[in-house]
């Protein structure tokens, strides 16, 4: 099974101009492909829908923050400090992101050891600490680092922070939605720790690249 009628170039362009009509069709085509191959990639079928959406958000944010971009007619990605043509299709890249998210989930749930032999997963991490400070404007670098760290936060923190800071829900509302947190004070502590972890990780990355905090 293949996604026909779509090229990576079209996808990058559609994301950049937020062409929702096109992206909706792409989303469904992509999901059909994803579900078709999910049995071969994932150990369990739990959370597959969530993993797919998270992986696609990850990919589209990489495009929006220009970590993936068109260069001389080719789809390229910043890796190891350079903008290099991608060695795989965006679909393969998406599957690799999904696979990593799935393993991270399993590792958290079952305390499995993450044995990472996948070249794509190495590629995903390759540019983490090797951004060129002169090739990219500092503002873009900062935005990219923040995007990367926020994309990597746990589903639990994502839910709490999104509900509080994006949906402007009260702590009481969130408490009702999340039975895992038993007390308001506990929820408040979780929210604080999630934010603090993000801040620390971002500041550390800024520091490595000599960016202003």
């Amino acid at each position: 099974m293949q996604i026909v009628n779509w090229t990576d170039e079209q996808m990058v362009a559609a994301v950049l101009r937020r062409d929702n009509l096109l992206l909706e069709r792409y989303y469904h085509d992509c999901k059909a492909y994803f579900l078709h191959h999910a049995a071969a990639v994932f150990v369990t079928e739990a959370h597959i829908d969530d993993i797919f959406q998270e992986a696609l958000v990850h990919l589209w944010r990489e495009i929006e923050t220009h970590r993936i971009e068109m260069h001389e007619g080719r789809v390229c990605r910043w890796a190891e400090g350079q903008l290099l043509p991608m060695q795989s299709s965006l679909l393969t890249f998406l599957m690799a992101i999904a696979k990593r998210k799935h393993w991270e989930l399993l590792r958290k749930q079952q305390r499995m050891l993450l044995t990472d032999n996948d070249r794509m997963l190495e590629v995903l991490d390759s540019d983490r600490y090797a951004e060129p400070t002169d090739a990219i404007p500092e503002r873009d670098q900062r935005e990219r680092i923040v995007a990367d760290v926020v994309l990597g936060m746990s589903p639990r923190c994502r839910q709490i922070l999104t509900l509080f800071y994006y949906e402007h829900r009260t702590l009481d509302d969130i408490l009702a939605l999340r039975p895992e947190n038993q007390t308001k004070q506990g929820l408040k502590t979780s929210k604080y720790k999630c934010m603090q972890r993000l801040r620390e990780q971002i500041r550390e990355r800024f520091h490595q690249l000599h960016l202003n905090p």
Partner: protein
Amino acid sequence: MNTTENKEYIYGDEERIDALDHLIFHEIGQQAQWAQTMKMWEERARQQRRHRLLPVFSNIASVAALFVLGLIVEAMVPGIKIADSLVDSPAAPATEQTPVQPSSPAAVTPDSAVIGIVDSTASPQP
């Protein structure tokens, strides 16, 4: 930018935020927007599937309701056969038909106008 400056209170919480927090909130918002959009697409696709299936289920339900109605009428009116005609089954062999004497008063009843009435004088269907 000095992160100890530009702090402000937000959302009625005592937490203080700075420029870095603004970047974080912006990113959380961007990702949440994509996630919401995708959920909306999922819901729309689900509704479209439902709308496509609805006429099929509606037709099945109509036929089933007619069938049940036929059975009820059959149970209430002796000698009437409605359910069989609804499923359009081939004509039953003549040997299975209830033998009714042509001279019998039962062959000429007010019910004979109703579809499916057993009438031994009627010729078997091809």
